[in-house]
């Protein structure tokens, strides 16, 4: 028996909005520790890693480890049926081939439930090594989304370069070039608006806009976003989900052509 209750169903909806651009379907692994999801997009360029801790839920019970393969478009339809303030309860029997979502309105005067068929999915598990990152940038997530959106107009890829002066995003294309530089700012009153850079050594890496743009769909989840970079290692874009866990995206860099 699996049962998880979340008073704030909109959090789950935001998670779903953040990943459904990249993934059509995914397996949710449920254990007593919580719910995990790890999946690559079809081109194997980016990876979504979601971790929701069991103690972040208002009620969580998972007697037996369970993998639920879901079509995310269908799951999106289910959550479209929920109200903004609804409480959601997910339920599944052991070895079940369906999962049930129950939405309760705030005043408890309306209860709706939806049962969705599960899918059998191929799952490829990736071992992600621990990396000592050369630089870790924390910045307001809205600012990050804005920069990526703006620079996407100029080219297909964005160079993120980080030095001790600050972080620079740049793009170039047929119409010209665009550069955005951010300096470190400490705003002690409003922690969420500050830009902090933890730098071991300078890095510059190139990434495809298309994927960065998809990642920024997670902006509503968190005020701050954390970018971790290191030469020749995928970028990690992390959004903390308050009290519940985190959503991480990994993105393979673009590599300059050598003569082979």
């Amino acid at each position: 028996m699996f049962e998880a209750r979340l008073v704030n169903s909109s959090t789950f909806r935001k998670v779903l909005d953040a990943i459904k651009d990249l993934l059509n379907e995914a397996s949710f692994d449920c254990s007593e520790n919580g719910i995990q999801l790890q999946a690559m997009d079809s081109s194997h360029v980016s990876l979504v890693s979601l971790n929701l801790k069991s103690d972040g839920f208002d009620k969580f019970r998972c007697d037996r480890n369970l993998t639920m393969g879901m079509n995310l478009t269908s799951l999106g339809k289910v959550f479209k049926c929920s109200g903004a303030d609804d409480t959601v309860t997910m339920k599944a029997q052991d070895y079940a081939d369906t999962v049930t979502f129950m939405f309760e309105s705030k005043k408890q005067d309306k209860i709706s439930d939806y049962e969705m068929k599960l899918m059998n999915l191929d799952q490829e598990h990736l071992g992600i090594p621990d990396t000592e990152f050369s630089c870790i940038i924390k910045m307001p997530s809205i600012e990050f989304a804005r920069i990526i959106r703006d620079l996407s107009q100029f080219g297909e890829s964005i160079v993120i370069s980080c030095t001790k002066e600050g972080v620079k995003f740049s793009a170039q294309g047929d119409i010209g070039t665009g550069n955005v530089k951010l300096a470190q700012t400490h705003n002690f009153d409003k922690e969420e608006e500050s830009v902090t850079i933890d730098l071991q050594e300078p890095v510059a890496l190139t990434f495809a806009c298309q994927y960065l743009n998809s990642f920024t769909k997670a902006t509503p989840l968190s005020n701050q976003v954390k970018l971790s970079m290191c030469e020749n290692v995928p970028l990690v874009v992390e959004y903390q989900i308050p009290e519940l866990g985190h959503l991480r995206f990994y993105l393979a860099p673009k590599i300059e052509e050598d003569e082979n």
Partner: protein
Amino acid sequence: MGILNLTKFLADVAPHCIKETDIKSYFGRKVAIDASMSLYQFLIAVRSEGAQLTTADGEPTSHLVGTFYRTIRLLEHGIKPVYVFDGKPPEMKGGELNKRMEKRAEAQKALDKAMEAGDQAEVDKFNRRLVKVTRHHADEAKELLRLMGVPYIEAPCEAEAQCAAMVKAGKIYATATEDMDALTFGSDIVLRHLTFSEARKMPIQEIHLKIVLQELNLSQTEFIDFCILMGCDYTDSIRGIGPKKSIELIKNHRSIEKILENIDKSKYPPPEDWNYEGARGLFVKPEISDPDSIELKWGEPDEEGMVKFLCGHRQFSEDRVRNGIKKLQKARGTSTQARLDGFFTVLGTTPAKRKADDKKNTPNKRGKLGGAGKGRGRPK
């Protein structure tokens, strides 16, 4: 050509080994293309109003049109193609080649007849059957590839064998061909439909040899024997033994020698002087050049050279050629997107099977799953 009915058989028996993918997912991959096969395709497919495209003197240029545009398309998708041309055919292929010659002669006769009768549809049909890739076509294609900066290799013998050896050596990712014997030669991954026209909207089929062997529960040597039973280019097969019987026999006896000892020879007479050992030898130890000695280089396209080669005598439109070259240069300029698998190791794949396999309805599971799949994912 290739192995008789192998694709159909695999689709039925080992459906997991064939994945349908999109050309977009092959960026950054090095792929060996069976050149003779694709030139043949181009000569048949690239036509206007049923006739081949030709030079001012009536020499066909369809193969060049195809090579030019389809290669550009591959490069635009970030794929790095290397073309592999056939060398001399192996002696054992003589029988098969004779058969093909006979068929051509028949087609020629039928064509003459149709011409006399003035039946245009028939004329077109037999015209296509008479298409042959000559040395001259291949040389022209090589010259074009050289100008485009795309590498090509001349295999000492069969192109598929050379491709397979390069895949095995890790030089390239996959073999692109329609000929299924690339699998028999041991190419880990075979791509079909890669050089097809975009307009046909054919998904690319990716066939994994490892999964084929796993699902059929055969070793590579047993798989080779199985392919010979199915019917290959190098020798005849036993009359009256089709795919079903072949797999059954190979699973029971594990080699052709054992099968011959055990089957009823009056019912299934093996061909006279059946040289299955020779055919097997060709698959196991084909004549190839050492993959490690091959250097693959994708160079700068020679714009003026290409314009001179294609336009003028060969009647290509200069605008289109220059446009194509621009695309080539653009594709070269961009950096390649890396893949995550290159950084992280795949720990393992959990196949799409429910863990509760021990349920009662296991026997008819396949049928059940197929039926249930269609109605999936639409909550009411």
